[in-house]
Protein backbone atom coordinates (compact mmCIF):
# COMPACT_ATOMS: atom_id res chain seq x y z
CA UNK A 1 0.00 0.00 0.00
CA UNK A 2 1.23 3.43 -0.86
CA UNK A 3 1.62 5.34 2.40
CA UNK A 4 1.09 8.63 0.56
CA UNK A 5 -2.32 7.64 -0.72
CA UNK A 6 -3.78 8.51 2.67
CA UNK A 7 -2.71 12.11 2.29
CA UNK A 8 -3.50 12.61 -1.35
CA UNK A 9 -6.97 11.06 -1.33
CA UNK A 10 -9.64 13.67 -1.85
CA UNK A 11 -12.29 14.24 0.77
CA UNK A 12 -15.64 12.52 0.27
CA UNK A 13 -17.82 14.46 2.72
CA UNK A 14 -18.26 17.51 0.43
CA UNK A 15 -19.63 15.19 -2.27
CA UNK A 16 -22.08 13.67 0.23
CA UNK A 17 -23.21 17.12 1.26
CA UNK A 18 -23.72 18.35 -2.28
CA UNK A 19 -25.55 15.23 -3.45
CA UNK A 20 -27.89 15.44 -0.47
CA UNK A 21 -28.63 19.11 -1.01
CA UNK A 22 -29.64 18.57 -4.64
CA UNK A 23 -31.61 15.40 -3.93
CA UNK A 24 -33.53 16.82 -0.99
CA UNK A 25 -34.38 20.02 -2.83
CA UNK A 26 -36.16 17.83 -5.39
CA UNK A 27 -37.72 15.47 -2.90
CA UNK A 28 -39.11 18.31 -0.82
CA UNK A 29 -40.56 19.97 -3.92
CA UNK A 30 -42.23 16.76 -5.00
CA UNK A 31 -43.56 15.80 -1.56
CA UNK A 32 -47.11 16.44 -2.76
CA UNK A 33 -46.53 14.07 -5.69
CA UNK A 34 -46.17 16.91 -8.15
CA UNK A 35 -42.73 16.17 -9.56
CA UNK A 36 -42.94 18.17 -12.77
CA UNK A 37 -40.26 16.22 -14.62
CA UNK A 38 -41.89 12.88 -13.93
CA UNK A 39 -45.28 14.24 -14.99
CA UNK A 40 -43.84 15.65 -18.19
CA UNK A 41 -42.20 12.34 -19.03
CA UNK A 42 -45.46 10.46 -18.66
CA UNK A 43 -47.50 12.97 -20.63
CA UNK A 44 -45.01 13.25 -23.47
CA UNK A 45 -44.96 9.50 -23.88
CA UNK A 46 -48.75 9.44 -23.80
CA UNK A 47 -49.01 12.12 -26.44
CA UNK A 48 -46.62 10.29 -28.75
CA UNK A 49 -48.34 6.97 -28.29
CA UNK A 50 -51.55 8.53 -29.64
CA UNK A 51 -49.93 8.88 -33.02
CA UNK A 52 -47.68 5.89 -33.22
CA UNK A 53 -46.97 2.66 -31.53
CA UNK A 54 -43.96 3.04 -29.32
CA UNK A 55 -41.65 0.13 -28.96
CA UNK A 56 -40.54 0.31 -25.33
CA UNK A 57 -37.11 -0.88 -26.32
CA UNK A 58 -36.71 2.04 -28.71
CA UNK A 59 -37.47 4.73 -26.17
CA UNK A 60 -34.81 6.19 -23.97
CA UNK A 61 -35.84 8.61 -21.30
CA UNK A 62 -33.13 10.25 -19.28
CA UNK A 63 -33.49 12.70 -16.47
CA UNK A 64 -30.86 14.76 -14.82
CA UNK A 65 -31.88 16.55 -11.69
CA UNK A 66 -29.61 19.46 -11.03
CA UNK A 67 -29.44 22.10 -8.35
CA UNK A 68 -30.73 24.90 -10.58
CA UNK A 69 -32.20 23.18 -13.62
CA UNK A 70 -33.32 19.68 -14.51
CA UNK A 71 -33.20 18.25 -17.98
CA UNK A 72 -35.47 15.68 -19.52
CA UNK A 73 -34.44 13.97 -22.73
CA UNK A 74 -36.79 11.69 -24.62
CA UNK A 75 -35.10 9.83 -27.42
CA UNK A 76 -37.46 7.83 -29.60
CA UNK A 77 -36.70 5.84 -32.73
CA UNK A 78 -39.50 6.32 -35.25
CA UNK A 79 -39.59 3.56 -37.84
CA UNK A 80 -40.96 4.21 -41.37
CA UNK A 81 -44.07 2.18 -40.76
CA UNK A 82 -44.81 3.63 -37.34
CA UNK A 83 -48.02 5.33 -38.45
CA UNK A 84 -49.55 2.18 -39.85
CA UNK A 85 -48.84 0.24 -36.71
CA UNK A 86 -50.60 2.71 -34.45
Amino acid sequence: MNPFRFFSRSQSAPAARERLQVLLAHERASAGDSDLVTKLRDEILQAISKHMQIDDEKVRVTMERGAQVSTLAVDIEIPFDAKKAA
Partner: protein
Amino acid sequence: MGKVVVVTSGKGGVGKTTSSAALGAALAQNGEKVVVVDFDVGLRNLDLVMGAERRVVYDLVNVIQGEAKLSQALIRDKRLETLYLLPASQTRDKDNLTPEGVEKVIAALQSAFDWVICDSPAGIERGATLAMRHADIAIVVTNPEVSSVRDSDRIIGLLDSKTLKAENGERMEKHLLLTRYDPIRAERGDMLKVDDVLEILSIPLMGIIPESADVLRASNVGSPVTLADNRSAPALAYFDAARRLKGEALPITIPGEKRSFLGKIFGRKAA
Protein backbone atom coordinates in the same frame (compact mmCIF):
# COMPACT_ATOMS: atom_id res chain seq x y z
CA MET B 1 -49.63 15.12 32.22
CA GLY B 2 -46.51 13.44 30.98
CA LYS B 3 -44.73 14.41 27.80
CA VAL B 4 -44.90 12.06 24.83
CA VAL B 5 -41.63 11.75 22.92
CA VAL B 6 -41.16 9.78 19.72
CA VAL B 7 -37.71 8.50 18.80
CA THR B 8 -37.74 8.07 15.04
CA SER B 9 -35.47 8.03 11.98
CA GLY B 10 -36.95 6.39 8.91
CA LYS B 11 -33.82 4.37 8.33
CA GLY B 12 -33.14 1.26 10.36
CA GLY B 13 -30.05 0.57 12.40
CA VAL B 14 -29.17 4.19 13.17
CA GLY B 15 -29.73 3.88 16.92
CA LYS B 16 -33.40 4.47 17.71
CA THR B 17 -33.68 1.66 20.24
CA THR B 18 -30.28 2.36 21.78
CA SER B 19 -31.25 6.03 22.12
CA SER B 20 -34.72 5.30 23.48
CA ALA B 21 -33.25 3.08 26.20
CA ALA B 22 -30.38 5.44 27.00
CA LEU B 23 -32.53 8.59 27.16
CA GLY B 24 -35.24 6.80 29.14
CA ALA B 25 -32.69 5.54 31.64
CA ALA B 26 -30.93 8.91 31.82
CA LEU B 27 -34.21 10.64 32.68
CA ALA B 28 -35.03 7.97 35.26
CA GLN B 29 -31.55 8.29 36.76
CA ASN B 30 -32.51 11.89 37.46
CA GLY B 31 -35.65 10.83 39.29
CA GLU B 32 -38.16 11.25 36.47
CA LYS B 33 -40.85 8.61 36.04
CA VAL B 34 -40.36 7.14 32.58
CA VAL B 35 -41.95 4.50 30.39
CA VAL B 36 -40.35 3.42 27.14
CA VAL B 37 -42.79 1.91 24.64
CA ASP B 38 -41.67 -0.41 21.84
CA PHE B 39 -43.77 0.14 18.69
CA ASP B 40 -41.86 -2.34 16.56
CA VAL B 41 -44.52 -5.06 16.46
CA GLY B 42 -43.06 -8.27 15.09
CA LEU B 43 -39.44 -7.22 15.55
CA ARG B 44 -39.26 -6.07 19.13
CA ASN B 45 -35.82 -5.39 20.53
CA LEU B 46 -36.16 -2.78 23.21
CA ASP B 47 -36.73 -5.55 25.77
CA LEU B 48 -33.41 -7.09 24.80
CA VAL B 49 -31.46 -3.83 24.83
CA MET B 50 -32.90 -3.03 28.26
CA GLY B 51 -32.23 -6.52 29.59
CA ALA B 52 -35.85 -7.42 30.26
CA GLU B 53 -36.36 -10.03 27.53
CA ARG B 54 -36.97 -12.85 30.00
CA ARG B 55 -39.62 -10.96 31.88
CA VAL B 56 -42.01 -10.18 29.02
CA VAL B 57 -45.42 -11.67 29.69
CA TYR B 58 -47.88 -9.30 28.04
CA ASP B 59 -47.27 -6.67 25.40
CA LEU B 60 -48.69 -3.56 23.75
CA VAL B 61 -50.95 -5.54 21.42
CA ASN B 62 -52.35 -7.57 24.34
CA VAL B 63 -53.28 -4.31 26.05
CA ILE B 64 -54.83 -2.85 22.91
CA GLN B 65 -56.85 -6.02 22.30
CA GLY B 66 -58.05 -6.00 25.91
CA GLU B 67 -56.32 -9.28 26.77
CA ALA B 68 -54.23 -7.72 29.51
CA LYS B 69 -54.35 -4.68 31.72
CA LEU B 70 -51.78 -1.98 31.13
CA SER B 71 -50.38 -2.52 34.62
CA GLN B 72 -49.82 -6.21 33.82
CA ALA B 73 -47.88 -5.46 30.66
CA LEU B 74 -45.58 -2.83 32.13
CA ILE B 75 -42.17 -4.17 33.18
CA ARG B 76 -40.29 -2.31 35.87
CA ASP B 77 -36.55 -2.01 35.38
CA LYS B 78 -34.52 -4.00 37.91
CA ARG B 79 -31.94 -1.26 38.36
CA LEU B 80 -34.04 1.89 38.24
CA GLU B 81 -37.27 2.17 40.23
CA THR B 82 -38.82 4.81 38.03
CA LEU B 83 -38.06 3.22 34.66
CA TYR B 84 -40.65 1.03 32.95
CA LEU B 85 -40.88 -0.79 29.64
CA LEU B 86 -43.95 -1.60 27.56
CA PRO B 87 -42.79 -4.27 25.11
CA ALA B 88 -44.07 -4.81 21.58
CA SER B 89 -45.59 -8.07 20.47
CA GLN B 90 -43.20 -10.46 18.81
CA THR B 91 -45.74 -12.73 17.18
CA ARG B 92 -48.74 -10.62 16.28
CA ASP B 93 -49.36 -8.92 13.00
CA LYS B 94 -48.74 -5.19 13.11
CA ASP B 95 -52.29 -4.59 11.88
CA ASN B 96 -53.33 -5.26 15.46
CA LEU B 97 -51.94 -1.86 16.29
CA THR B 98 -55.06 0.29 15.90
CA PRO B 99 -55.12 4.09 16.09
CA GLU B 100 -57.87 4.00 18.73
CA GLY B 101 -56.01 1.44 20.82
CA VAL B 102 -52.76 3.35 20.68
CA GLU B 103 -54.53 6.56 21.63
CA LYS B 104 -56.02 4.93 24.74
CA VAL B 105 -52.73 3.40 25.85
CA ILE B 106 -50.81 6.65 25.36
CA ALA B 107 -53.43 8.62 27.29
CA ALA B 108 -53.26 6.17 30.20
CA LEU B 109 -49.46 6.23 30.24
CA GLN B 110 -49.39 10.00 30.08
CA SER B 111 -51.40 10.29 33.25
CA ALA B 112 -49.09 7.93 35.14
CA PHE B 113 -45.62 8.94 33.89
CA ASP B 114 -43.59 12.12 33.43
CA TRP B 115 -42.22 10.84 30.13
CA VAL B 116 -43.65 8.43 27.56
CA ILE B 117 -40.88 7.56 25.11
CA CYS B 118 -42.10 5.86 21.94
CA ASP B 119 -39.45 3.80 20.17
CA SER B 120 -40.51 3.85 16.53
CA PRO B 121 -39.87 1.03 14.07
CA ALA B 122 -37.90 1.83 10.92
CA GLY B 123 -39.79 2.73 7.78
CA ILE B 124 -42.80 4.96 7.22
CA GLU B 125 -45.54 2.36 7.61
CA ARG B 126 -48.26 2.00 10.21
CA GLY B 127 -46.02 1.29 13.21
CA ALA B 128 -43.89 4.34 12.54
CA THR B 129 -46.81 6.69 11.89
CA LEU B 130 -48.65 5.45 14.99
CA ALA B 131 -45.54 5.85 17.14
CA MET B 132 -45.27 9.53 16.14
CA ARG B 133 -48.99 10.28 16.07
CA HIS B 134 -49.43 11.46 19.67
CA ALA B 135 -45.99 12.92 20.21
CA ASP B 136 -45.36 16.31 21.80
CA ILE B 137 -41.67 16.14 20.94
CA ALA B 138 -39.85 14.23 18.21
CA ILE B 139 -36.25 13.08 18.38
CA VAL B 140 -34.90 12.38 14.91
CA VAL B 141 -31.97 9.96 15.16
CA THR B 142 -29.55 10.41 12.27
CA ASN B 143 -26.14 9.02 11.32
CA PRO B 144 -23.75 11.32 9.43
CA GLU B 145 -24.31 9.34 6.26
CA VAL B 146 -26.27 10.12 3.08
CA SER B 147 -29.05 7.52 3.27
CA SER B 148 -29.77 8.25 6.92
CA VAL B 149 -29.94 12.02 6.30
CA ARG B 150 -32.27 11.51 3.35
CA ASP B 151 -34.61 9.30 5.37
CA SER B 152 -34.56 11.74 8.28
CA ASP B 153 -35.65 14.48 5.91
CA ARG B 154 -38.57 12.33 4.87
CA ILE B 155 -39.50 11.62 8.49
CA ILE B 156 -39.38 15.33 9.31
CA GLY B 157 -41.90 15.83 6.50
CA LEU B 158 -44.19 13.22 8.07
CA LEU B 159 -43.80 14.73 11.54
CA ASP B 160 -44.99 18.04 10.07
CA SER B 161 -48.01 16.51 8.33
CA LYS B 162 -49.17 13.20 9.81
CA THR B 163 -49.11 13.85 13.55
CA LEU B 164 -52.00 15.08 15.71
CA LYS B 165 -50.09 18.27 16.46
CA ALA B 166 -49.58 18.97 12.77
CA GLU B 167 -53.21 18.24 11.96
CA ASN B 168 -54.29 20.69 14.66
CA GLY B 169 -52.11 23.35 13.09
CA GLU B 170 -49.61 23.25 15.94
CA ARG B 171 -45.86 23.15 15.54
CA MET B 172 -44.20 19.83 16.24
CA GLU B 173 -41.09 20.24 18.35
CA LYS B 174 -38.29 18.35 16.59
CA HIS B 175 -34.74 17.68 17.69
CA LEU B 176 -31.82 16.08 15.94
CA LEU B 177 -29.80 13.40 17.70
CA LEU B 178 -26.69 12.72 15.67
CA THR B 179 -25.41 9.26 16.47
CA ARG B 180 -22.29 7.24 15.55
CA TYR B 181 -20.39 10.46 14.99
CA ASP B 182 -16.66 10.13 14.48
CA PRO B 183 -14.97 13.53 14.90
CA ILE B 184 -11.68 12.30 13.47
CA ARG B 185 -13.22 11.08 10.23
CA ALA B 186 -15.34 14.24 10.02
CA GLU B 187 -12.25 16.40 10.48
CA ARG B 188 -10.47 14.40 7.79
CA GLY B 189 -13.34 15.22 5.43
CA ASP B 190 -14.61 11.68 5.07
CA MET B 191 -17.76 12.04 7.15
CA LEU B 192 -20.48 14.68 7.08
CA LYS B 193 -19.83 17.22 9.81
CA VAL B 194 -22.33 18.25 12.46
CA ASP B 195 -22.88 21.56 10.68
CA ASP B 196 -23.45 19.85 7.32
CA VAL B 197 -26.24 17.70 8.74
CA LEU B 198 -27.74 20.62 10.66
CA GLU B 199 -27.75 22.82 7.59
CA ILE B 200 -29.41 20.15 5.47
CA LEU B 201 -32.08 19.10 7.97
CA SER B 202 -32.47 22.49 9.70
CA ILE B 203 -33.83 21.28 13.02
CA PRO B 204 -32.19 22.06 16.37
CA LEU B 205 -29.50 19.75 17.68
CA MET B 206 -30.20 17.80 20.85
CA GLY B 207 -26.95 15.93 21.08
CA ILE B 208 -24.04 14.24 19.37
CA ILE B 209 -23.41 10.63 20.35
CA PRO B 210 -19.89 9.54 19.43
CA GLU B 211 -19.21 6.26 17.69
CA SER B 212 -18.15 4.03 20.54
CA ALA B 213 -17.54 0.42 21.48
CA ASP B 214 -19.38 1.15 24.74
CA VAL B 215 -22.71 1.08 22.90
CA LEU B 216 -22.33 -2.52 21.72
CA ARG B 217 -20.86 -3.52 25.07
CA ALA B 218 -23.94 -2.14 26.83
CA SER B 219 -26.40 -3.91 24.54
CA ASN B 220 -24.45 -7.16 24.91
CA VAL B 221 -25.25 -7.17 28.60
CA GLY B 222 -28.77 -5.76 28.24
CA SER B 223 -28.15 -2.42 29.84
CA PRO B 224 -28.94 1.09 28.61
CA VAL B 225 -25.59 2.71 27.85
CA THR B 226 -26.10 5.35 30.55
CA LEU B 227 -26.40 2.57 33.13
CA ALA B 228 -23.72 0.23 31.81
CA ASP B 229 -20.94 2.77 32.28
CA ASN B 230 -22.14 6.19 33.31
CA ARG B 231 -18.72 7.76 32.67
CA SER B 232 -18.36 6.51 29.09
CA ALA B 233 -18.39 9.05 26.26
CA PRO B 234 -21.77 7.97 24.81
CA ALA B 235 -23.32 7.89 28.31
CA LEU B 236 -22.18 11.46 29.00
CA ALA B 237 -23.57 12.55 25.63
CA TYR B 238 -26.93 10.91 26.39
CA PHE B 239 -27.05 12.51 29.86
CA ASP B 240 -26.59 15.91 28.22
CA ALA B 241 -29.21 15.13 25.59
CA ALA B 242 -31.68 14.11 28.33
CA ARG B 243 -31.10 17.42 30.10
CA ARG B 244 -31.77 19.29 26.86
CA LEU B 245 -34.93 17.23 26.41
CA LYS B 246 -36.04 18.57 29.80
CA GLY B 247 -35.52 22.06 28.45
CA GLU B 248 -32.10 22.94 29.82
CA ALA B 249 -30.02 25.13 27.54
CA LEU B 250 -26.70 23.30 27.65
CA PRO B 251 -23.98 24.21 25.18
CA ILE B 252 -23.32 21.42 22.69
CA THR B 253 -19.88 19.89 22.77
CA ILE B 254 -18.57 17.88 19.89
CA PRO B 255 -17.26 14.63 21.31
CA GLY B 256 -13.56 14.08 20.91
CA GLU B 257 -12.66 17.74 20.94
CA LYS B 258 -11.68 17.47 24.57
CA ARG B 259 -9.35 14.60 23.82
CA SER B 260 -6.21 14.70 25.85
CA PHE B 261 -2.74 14.54 24.42
CA LEU B 262 -2.37 10.92 25.52
CA GLY B 263 -5.78 10.11 24.11
CA LYS B 264 -4.66 11.37 20.73
CA ILE B 265 -1.56 9.24 20.79
CA PHE B 266 -3.27 6.06 21.84
CA GLY B 267 -6.47 6.75 19.88
CA ARG B 268 -8.70 6.24 22.84
CA LYS B 269 -10.27 8.14 25.66
CA ALA B 270 -7.73 8.68 28.43
CA ALA B 271 -10.29 8.98 31.19
